[in-house]
């Protein structure tokens, strides 16, 4: 498989009054062309910040402190801002959590798409761009007449499809979707996920799907990356991570998913405690205060990344050969 994006030792820091907070701390992973990578974790674990960092759009007072992001052979962190801008929307596209607020209320739907196309391909005429937009949204199951509508005239599901459409308009190599279904109701969510699955096959989409919904990952993703308190806990193929779970945090996360098939008398397991404050994170492995399998070493040293089997790795002392 061809790697599309290689993130190495990425750290994003927010400068706060109480001191620096590393919302993303020394994170590395590789994204392959044509795959959907589910990025999961609790609220505040840094997954959304990581998503914004991939576009180099972390909001101040946050900034990328160190690392590398190799995309199409270039390190995104070394590009001048103007070059980076040209990548946004054309090569890397973003779908935001709330489709209600992510479209300009004073701009027609069609003009959103036309503007994006013509920003990156100035030689395309307005009419041509409009026609492309019409074709596109028809594929997304929306009547081309709706291009003339304003965002408030569309439903949430339609708007989210438009957001995806903007990404597809220029055949972006990578789509980052940050909780794209969180604000949709379950039926619309199911339809939207179906659409994403179709589009993945049709357009050979590469996507980072940021979510706290394990179910969405199970349905849609090829691989899954689990983040905890700013660090990567486990990465692997969905099947491996779900069935041969390595990290105790991932185990806890999976056990806490309610199932309709839950048998009588079987109680839903929950992870005790809360994620740590990133202002003053616990030493060693950040999960150790909540970890049922914590050892003395977990309190003292940060676990190194272990490739337990090809393509399936974790940062946990339980799998450190020398330690074990």
């Amino acid at each position, binding site marked *: 498989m061809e790697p599309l994006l290689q993130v190495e030792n990425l750290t994003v820091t927010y400068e706060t009054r109480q001191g620096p907070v590393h919302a993303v701390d020394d994170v590395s992973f590789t994204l392959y062309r044509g795959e959907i990578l589910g990025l999961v974790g609790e609220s505040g674990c840094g997954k959304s910040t990581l998503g914004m960092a991939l*576009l180099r*759009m972390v*909001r101040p007072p946050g900034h990328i402190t160190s690392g590398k992001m190799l995309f199409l052979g270039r390190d995104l962190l070394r590009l001048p801002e103007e070059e980076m*801008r*040209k*990548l*946004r*929307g*054309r090569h890397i*596209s*973003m779908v*935001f959590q*709330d489709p209600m*607020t*992510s*479209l*300009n*209320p*004073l*701009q027609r739907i069609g003009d*959103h798409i036309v*503007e*994006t196309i013509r*920003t*990156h391909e100035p030689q395309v005429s307005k009419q041509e761009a409009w026609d492309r937009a019409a074709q596109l949204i028809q594929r997304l199951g929306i009547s081309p007449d709706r291009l003339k509508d*304003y965002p*408030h005239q569309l439903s949430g599901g339609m708007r989210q499809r438009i*957001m995806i459409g*903007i990404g597809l308009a220029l055949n972006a190599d990578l789509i980052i979707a940050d909780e794209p279904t969180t604000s949709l109701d379950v039926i619309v969510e199911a339809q939207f996920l179906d659409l994403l699955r179709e589009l993945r096959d049709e357009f050979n989409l590469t996507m980072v799907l940021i979510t706290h919904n394990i179910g969405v990952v199970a349905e849609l993703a090829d691989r899954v990356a689990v983040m905890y308190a700013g660090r990567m806990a486990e990465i692997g193929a969905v099947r491996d991570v779900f069935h041969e779970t390595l990290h105790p945090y991932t185990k806890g996360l999976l056990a806490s998913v309610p199932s309709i098939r839950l048998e009588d008398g079987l109680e839903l397991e929950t992870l005790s405690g809360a994620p740590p404050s990133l202002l003053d994170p616990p030493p060693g492995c950040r999960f150790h205060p909540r970890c049922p399998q914590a050892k003395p070493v977990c309190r003292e040293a940060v676990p190194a990344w272990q490739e337990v089997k090809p393509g399936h790795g974790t940062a946990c002392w339980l799998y450190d050969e020398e330690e074990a």
Partner: protein
Amino acid sequence: MRSLGRYLLVRTLLTIPMIFVLVTLVFLILRVMPGDPVKSSIRPGAPQEYIDEIRHTLGLDKPLYVQYGEYLWDLLHFDLGTTLSPVRGQSVSEQIWEHFPATLELALAGILVTAVVGVGAGAYAAHHRRSVADYSLRLYAIIVYAIPVFWLGLMFQLIFGVWLRWFPIAGRISSLAVAPEHVTGLYTLDSLLTGNWVAFKDSVMHLILPAMTLGLYLSGVFVRLTRSNMLQILKMDFITAARARGIPERTVVYGHALKNALIPIITMMGLQFALLLAGAVLTESTFSWPGLGRFLVERITYRDFPSIQGAVVVFAVLVASVSLLVDVLYAWIDPRIRY
């Protein structure tokens, strides 16, 4: 559009009681105020019988309620009466109509300066938040807001008129130049329409200082308002989304964000229009600008009741029309607003 028509009709009808109250107040205040239109129009020391005779012919000796009733009756027929002083018997409507274009020209030019300077500087300050430019513009906004408009006018006259000699300091056009042919009454526009370049240049030069005075004076509010609105809009998701689409920062700020920040700015423009007219009264006096404001001030000194009442009614109708226009503009800018 039918509902918009209905809305406009209701709004128009609602201005009638407003104008009625205003007219009544002005009518009473003028009668309570010391001073007399007859005495101020004739030579001092004229015999009392003569004064009484004039008062009688003008109907000023009738009981107040009769005068008030007659005035309202005339007003209902769009008759603003005739002047009492300094010259008797001129049509007030004609006088107002004669002075109105000068005020309109100054007001439009002033609003233009305010819009460009105020909104432009506010947007720029928001774009470059916490920069030296931002702090300077905020300071500028407070200063111009606090400065009395006539003093600002005097300073402009002194600096740009007297010392630098860049601009004339009084009137609409040089006394030696010929006023352009009457088309709209706006000298700059008329001279442009008739191709009279000499008059055009001359009237523009005359317009610059008063328009800057009025425009800069009002711009302070708009710098602050635009800046704070822009800061709010720039935090919104659709702005982040536009940046994530690779839209250039300038387009994001001055296209997407500014347009969204415009609604409250336009509201403020409408509200400030009354202030603009008040500022126009003072600015016109400072620059000897022969408009409605200066006309009003002059007639107040002569106690020319019909002219004063007439001018106030016209100002009131103007303010009401502008606020109506603002409401229509909302619907035009924001597709979510429908009446």
